[in-house]
């Protein structure tokens, strides 16, 4: 056989370094890890609250410590990345058709940001910040 097709293998460990698109994908995949860590921290806080004032104070102390603050800044940044990536993807996964028109993706994404802003504002008011 004169044929000899040449196969180019994609590296299982570093494929995502081959294109900017894949790097951004990895970044927003990793962002979910930080969202999970945040949820974990909150759950720990809930347990500590149940264990009494001392445990709760200890948890608050950790949250306010330099490490806690740095961690929260990181989590905040990655949450934003996470949110933006998934909001951007919503129109693809959720196609809304009204008669002969497909609702423009921008509108769907915009609505998501709108709801996010409203909920954030509500929480901030509740917390007495705003």
């Amino acid at each position, binding site marked *: 056989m*004169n*044929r*000899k*097709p*040449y*196969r*180019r293998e*994609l590296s*299982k460990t570093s*494929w*995502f370094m081959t*294109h900017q*698109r*894949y790097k951004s*994908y990895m970044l927003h*995949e990793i962002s979910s890890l930080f969202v999970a860590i945040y949820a974990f921290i909150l759950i720990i806080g809930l347990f500590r609250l149940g264990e009494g004032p001392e445990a709760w104070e200890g948890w608050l102390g950790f949250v306010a410590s330099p490490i806690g603050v740095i961690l929260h800044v990181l989590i905040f940044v990655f949450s934003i990345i996470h949110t933006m990536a998934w909001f951007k*993807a919503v*129109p*693809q*996964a*959720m*196609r809304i*058709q009204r*008669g*002969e*028109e*497909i609702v423009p993706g921008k509108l769907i994404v915009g609505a998501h940001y709108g709801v996010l802003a409203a909920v954030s504002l509500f929480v901030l008011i509740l917390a007495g910040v705003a």
Partner: protein
Amino acid sequence: METRDVTIEVLRYRPEQDSEPFFQSYTVPCEEHWVVLDALNYIKDELDRTLSYRWSCHMFVCGSCGMVINGEPMLSCKKFVRDFGDKIRVEPLSNFPIERDLVIVQDDFMEKLSSVKPYLIPKEERSIESGEYLQTPAQLKTYKQYTMCINCLCCYAACPQYGLDDKFIGPAALALAHRYNADSRDVGRSAREDVVASHEGIWECSFVGACSLVCPKDVEPAGAIQQTKFTSAIDYITGMVSGGGKK
């Protein structure tokens, strides 16, 4: 006609003499209105008869001339030389074996395409005498976007999931399954489920979304796959609730 010299670097692979691909450079006097395919045709006609690549329609509808140009999968008949600098790098579509030069082996895709039963499965056969099925413009709109695929395979070249595991049915074939599933005349969704909703089907997709970004026909395969995931998940849940035990 005024021309501009552009260096076209082509990934060459001649299976009978090369052990691996290498880049060969050609200097091509390009005209203002040329697409990359025109530059390749110039090489073929004037510089090197041994360069092999596929092309036909030159109007982005036959799907033959998908290539990786400066790192992006695209149709060489749709990308103008004037949009690039003095050097253009042309490679065969990634994630496929190279048959020769810019020609890839696409047997795998052809099998996957037929595996998703890409044809209308009606509720019952309709006689010609009873005329056409009625389908409103709105019903047409629901699936029309997914009929636009020209099988150029740019999406497979952009999909890392397919690159890592070629068992993945892949973007174009899954989008085509969705095209028929979403057609008001079709009831074949469950017949396609075995392949479409299998591990090698939609659930293998991790939604990198690259397929939709490179698609020259705006077919949006990533969207089609996510929508199929949604209906499949609903099917699964209703199957559980009704105790049908359907996988």
